Structure formats: structure tokens, C-alpha cells
């Protein structure tokens, strides 16, 4: 009798636990779906808007600005990649492999630029480096130049300027990932490389950290693609700027949405690159 009741109790406990687990699971699943749907709504809206008629604008765009939009977007991505890799990988290597005064502080400070929007840095550098700024003003005083026609100075509001400004703000993604990868690489690998006379950085650190670096870079490039503030200020005609021109200049929401889908293709490609990098990363860890 006692046994029967206790086993019944056990059974109800198990069922109770199970159903509460299901209920909990359901609550989480539902919550997840709600969040996912909320995130998808704007993207879905763009896709739906893209079904509208573009009233022949694509022909116009492809004959005029589209090649420029694509070229500038790719050139911006390429240049920012170089700057972000240069800043991110070298600083990560310095703080993980070398000891120097205030190394810990540097480790934290190197992350800070990520907190500043690129366009603010763009404004700051422009004020600093333009004709009326302190750098050129100082040079003019020093050399007795009278105006802009007396000397040449690189134009900060340019593609090159955007590489520098955006790279300087976005490199922390690469820094963060590269730093973690360098720390995870067993020191014995480095030692083996040193003993066998191989270059530690190029021969071991970079190949092993490559998946992490590529993943960081993919994030950088997604930010580059979506930037509006900097490219607008520097007047660089990228896809993002083009979307605004088509939408507000030609009153064509549909064509703007279709252009956004072109930008989506870039993002999708970056996502695939990032995913592949992560798979390689798992492989690298196992080995």
C-alpha cells in the first residue's frame, strides 16, 4: 500500500516535472520566436517593399551610378579591411606576446574606439586635418604658405580618409578576436617554432588565428556596409548613400528596397565567410 502510493507519487512527480519542463520550454520557445519575429519585421518590410515597381529605374541606375556605388562600396571595404587588420592584429599580438609598461591598460583602451560612432571620429579628424584645422594652420605658419594653392595636403574627406577613420573605429572587432586566438594558442607551439627557426608570427600565430581574424573582419565589413554618417560626410557614393538618393531623390521606395537587397547579398556573403571561418576554427582547436 505504502509502496503503491509512493510509486504513484513518483509518477505524478515525473509527469509534473516533465510538463513543467515542457511549459518552460514553450515559454522560452515562444519568447525566442517573438524576438526573432520582431527582428525580422524590418527586413521583411524591405523585402515586401522591393516587390513594388521600380518604373524602369534599374536601367537608369545601371547606366549611371550603380557601377560607382558598387565600386566605392568594394573599395571602401577593401581599404577598411587593410587598416582594421593592420591595427587589430598588430596590437593584439603586442599585448599578448610582449610585456611592457601599462600593457593591461592598453589591452582595455584598445577596445574603446569601438564605442565611438565612425562619423564622430570623421568629424573630429576633419576639423583637425582640414585647411582651417591646427595641423595645416601650423604648417602654413611654419613654411609661410598663404593659401591652399601654395601646397598640397591630403584631403581627409576622401576614400582614403574613410579607410583611416572607419578602420580606426572598427579595428577592435579584429583586435578582440585576434587577441583571444593568440591567447588560446598553446605557448608550446610558439616555442617549437622558435626552436625550429620558423617565424613565430607568420608561421604559427597568424595561420592558427586566421579563422578568428576573418570572423572579426566580417563583422567590421558589415559595419562598413551599413555606415551612412561617414560616407555622407565624406561624400563617398556607396550603396548605402545610393539607397537614400533613390528613395528620397527619386521618390522610389521600391527601387531603394531593391538596392537594399543588393546590400543584403554583400551581408549574406560576409555571413557565409564568417561561418566558414568558425568551422575552420573548430577544426583548428581539435588539432
Amino acid at each position, binding site marked *: 500500500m505504502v509502496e503503491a502510493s509512493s510509486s504513484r507519487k513518483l509518477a505524478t512527480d515525473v509527469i509534473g516535472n516533465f510538463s513543467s519542463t515542457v511549459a518552460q520550454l514553450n515559454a522560452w520557445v515562444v519568447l525566442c520566436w517573438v524576438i526573432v519575429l520582431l527582428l525580422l519585421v524590418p527586413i521583411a518590410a524591405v523585402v515586401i517593399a522591393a516587390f513594388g515597381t521600380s518604373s524602369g529605374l534599374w536601367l*537608369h*541606375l545601371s547606366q*549611371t*551610378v550603380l557601377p*560607382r556605388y558598387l565600386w566605392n562600396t568594394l573599395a571602401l571595404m577593401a581599404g577598411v579591411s587593410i587598416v582594421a587588420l593592420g591595427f587589430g592584429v598588430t596590437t593584439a599580438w603586442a599585448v599578448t606576446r610582449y610585456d611592457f609598461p601599462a600593457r593591461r591598460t592598453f589591452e582595455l583602451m584598445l577596445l574603446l574606439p569601438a564605442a565611438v560612432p565612425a562619423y564622430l571620429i570623421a568629424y573630429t579628424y576633419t576639423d583637425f586635418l582640414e*585647411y*582651417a584645422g591646427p595641423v595645416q594652420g601650423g604648417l602654413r605658419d611654419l613654411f609661410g604658405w*598663404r*593659401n*591652399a*594653392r601654395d601646397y598640397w595636403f591630403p*584631403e581627409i*574627406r*576622401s576614400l582614403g580618409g574613410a579607410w583611416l577613420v572607419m578602420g580606426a573605429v572598427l579595428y577592435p572587432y579584429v583586435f578582440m578576436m585576434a587577441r583571444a586566438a593568440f591567447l588560446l594558442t598553446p605557448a608550446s607551439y610558439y616555442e617549437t617554432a622558435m626552436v625550429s627557426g620558423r617565424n613565430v608570427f607568420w608561421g604559427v600565430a597568424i595561420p592558427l588565428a586566421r579563422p578568428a581574424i576573418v570572423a572579426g573582419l566580417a563583422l567590421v565589413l558589415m559595419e562598413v556596409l551599413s555606415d551612412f554618417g561617414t560616407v555622407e560626410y*565624406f*561624400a563617398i557614393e556607396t550603396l548605402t*548613400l545610393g539607397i537614400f*538618393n*533613390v528613395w*528620397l*531623390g*527619386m*521618390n*522610389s521606395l521600391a527601387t531603394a528596397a531593391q538596392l537594399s537587397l543588393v546590400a543584403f547579398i554583400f551581408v549574406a556573403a560576409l555571413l557565409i565567410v564568417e561561418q566558414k571561418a568558425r568551422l575552420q576554427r573548430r577544426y583548428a582547436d581539435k588539432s
Partner: protein
Amino acid sequence: MIAVSKNAKDLTAIKRYEDLADPRWKGRVCSRPGSHVYNRALIASIISAAVSAEAQKWAAALVGNLARRPQGNDRAQVKAIYEGVCDIAIINNYYFGKLKTSDKPEQREWANAVNLIFPNQSGRGTHVNISGGGVAKHSKSKEEAQRFLEFLTSKKAQDLYGAINFEYPVNAGVPVSDGLKSWGTFKEDKMPIAKIAELAPEAQKVIDRVGW
């Protein structure tokens, strides 16, 4: 309107927007990007005055005269003239007023480096931008919105627009502010603003084609 450098003496030849297409100004014109709403509206007004093909020829010639890649805002164009980068720029006059009365001495210097020209005075008049207001069709507070718009067109608000922002009054009963009066009077292009909006997509196509 057209801002020109005080240092260059040959610029008195500029009387119309159309004159900016003259190849003698090669390498001497500054402008913000063509796609900016001010330039788009200006091209729309030129399309309206002539035909699209003419407007495109004008815009292409203007782009050919640019001293640097189109960039920056209106103030940046005045500044570029001050810096000696170029001698000619198309700007909205209220930015000029803002610079002239700026609390930053260097900005007042920029303004002092240029003269203003009211273009097309012997023809259709100078192109004018507006500060406009409207009420959303589905607004729940139409009455309040209307009252607000009435305030904006009242003498008090219009005086503020003129004194602080150097804008010309839309209310005919309100006199032009003293600051604006000091630059002289001018004939404005009477083209209806709705026409500008209608021609804006065509203007944007022109901008795309000439790469402004």
C-alpha cells in the same frame, strides 16, 4: 544664390546660374554633392525653365568646372572660397547670414571673403527654397497643428525667422529683417514648389548622369 570670392575681379561676369557652365570658370567652382536636396531643387527649377536636356548640359558643364569633388555643406563652400580652394559656390543665403553673425571669429572671416550675387535677375529670378509645414492626413490633433502653423506664419515667428535664421518672410505683412535688407532686394523665381517636387526625380536622374 551665388557666392564669389572678393579677391577675384573677373567674377562680375556671373549674372545667371547658366553662366556657371562657362568653361572660363574651370577649376574655380565648389559645390556640395548634386544629390543634396538644395541642388536637386535647383536643377528641377532649371529643368522647368528650359528642358531636361539643357539642364543636363548645364549640370555637366558645371561639374566640369568643379575645383574639387563635391562635398561638405553650404558653410563648407564659403569656407573653401576663403581657403582659396575655389572662387565660386552656390549657397543658400541664410547660411551666409549665419556665418556673418557667428560667435566664432573665424566663421565671420569666411563670410567676409565672399560677395553674394542674386542670379537671373533679368530673367526668371533667383531660385528660392522654402521652409514649409503641413499637417499629416491622419493627424489626431489637426486643430492644434493648424494653430501651430498659424503661429509660425504670425508676425512674431516670422520676425524670429528673419532675425535669427536669415529667412525671408512668407507672410507678406511682415517686413524683411534688417540683416537681409542690407544685402539688397531681389526678384525671386515664382515657380510653384509643387513643380519642384514633381521634377525632383528627373533632376536626380540628371545628377546621376553627370556624376555631380
